[in-house]
């Protein structure tokens, strides 16, 4: 992503995920770490039964997300539109089986095949019209309808994804519900622009289930809709120099902790004026 911005705006996925981009998914340790982390969290939300299950990984890429599935003792099939990404997965000798396919064309599996589904950082691609005849709402509906059929009743699907804006988010959830899924969003670290992560958590029939809580969420509900709170806070601070104010530092640290960042523990030295040095 040298030119910055959203990859979905640069080229269709089968071109964006070319050989060079695919290589990053087996060599860039930071990227590997991030994708593995997201996959583990998605699996935690998916909560498969404590038996070896059969799982579908949509937009499996080089198999980073799949490796997390293997680590938990489950079997998986991965589907991706980029042959370069899948070739990297073969080179990395992942345990899962791989299919080259476009999720917007539908999921080519028999009814009730999978116990669960995960998809990491891929779903937003379906909001793009990459070909003249692509119609995103139709592709999304086809995708969610065929996926619903391919999952066993009572099964779940968890998508970590990056919606570009609220109308994309709305379109995605709307089409999922139209296809028969229930469920909703789980948002981790909602207060942080960087650490914030969205998981669409869908249920295919079965007992009504409760959505798990997002991480760092308890605090978020209290700091929710906080325009007035903020004004109050600013008012209280007026007249002091916030930069040297211990309370300000403590509240900033608290905020960063809520955002899931590493923050040093508070101590009696926190926010104390340093001795001037020459």
């Amino acid at each position, binding site marked *: 992503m040298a030119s910055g911005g959203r990859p979905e705006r640069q080229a269709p996925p089968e071109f964006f995920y070319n050989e060079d981009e695919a290589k990053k998914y087996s060599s860039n340790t930071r990227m590997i770490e991030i994708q593995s982390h997201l996959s583990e969290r998605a699996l935690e939300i998916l909560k498969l039964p404590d*038996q*070896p*299950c*059969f799982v579908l990984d949509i937009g499996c890429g080089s198999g980073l997300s799949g490796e997390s599935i293997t680590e938990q003792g489950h*079997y998986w*099939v991965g589907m991706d*539109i980029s*042959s370069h990404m*899948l*070739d990297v997965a*073969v080179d990395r000798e992942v345990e899962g*089986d*791989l*299919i*080259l*396919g*476009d999720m917007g*064309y*539908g*999921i*080519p*599996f*028999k009814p*009730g*095949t999978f116990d669960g589904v995960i998809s990491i950082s891929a779903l937003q691609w379906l909001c793009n019209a990459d*070909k003249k*005849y692509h119609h995103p709402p139709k592709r999304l509906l086809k995708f969610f309808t*065929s996926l619903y059929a391919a999952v066993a009743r009572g099964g779940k699907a968890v998508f970590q994804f990056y919606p570009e804006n609220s109308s994309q988010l709305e379109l995605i959830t709307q089409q999922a519900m139209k296809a028969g899924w229930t469920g909703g969003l789980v948002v981790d670290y909602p207060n942080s622009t960087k650490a914030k992560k969205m998981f669409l958590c869908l249920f295919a029939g079965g007992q009504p289930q409760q959505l798990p809580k997002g991480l760092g969420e308890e605090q978020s509900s209290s700091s929710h809709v906080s325009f007035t709170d903020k004004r109050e806070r600013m008012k209280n601070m007026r007249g002091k120099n916030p930069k040297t104010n211990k309370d300000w530092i403590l509240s900033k640290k608290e905020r960063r902790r809520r955002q899931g960042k590493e923050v040093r523990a508070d101590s009696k030295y926190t926010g104390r004026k340093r001795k001037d040095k020459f």
Partner: protein
Amino acid sequence: MKLLTHNFLTSNIIKGVKNGYPLSILPGKVEMKEVDFNPEFITRMLPKIEWSALQKAAKECGFEEGLPDTVGEEQLGDTDLLKRVHKALLEIEVVEGKLVCPESGREFPINNGIPNMLLNEDEV
């Protein structure tokens, strides 16, 4: 592609195709790949397997593993049987070849072990 995947794969995403199952296998290169035997997984999959499709697929790949027509309750503890099913489902790998849709005759190439299920504009 493993026969486990094949046992659930259909071409019914093609416009006009109803079941698209089972896909015929025209093997080019088939390999055996050793996979750890996990009786719990195989046992869980038994009721979901389409046995006639598995028998046909194994045959197409050149294996006659003595696969059952059906599996009843009394066979669930039969380790020998589970091992044969394990081998057919997880160890046979179609590396190169083709899948053929039973309804439309449409061919899907398999390269580097990966079936290409992408469709053309007029098939969606």
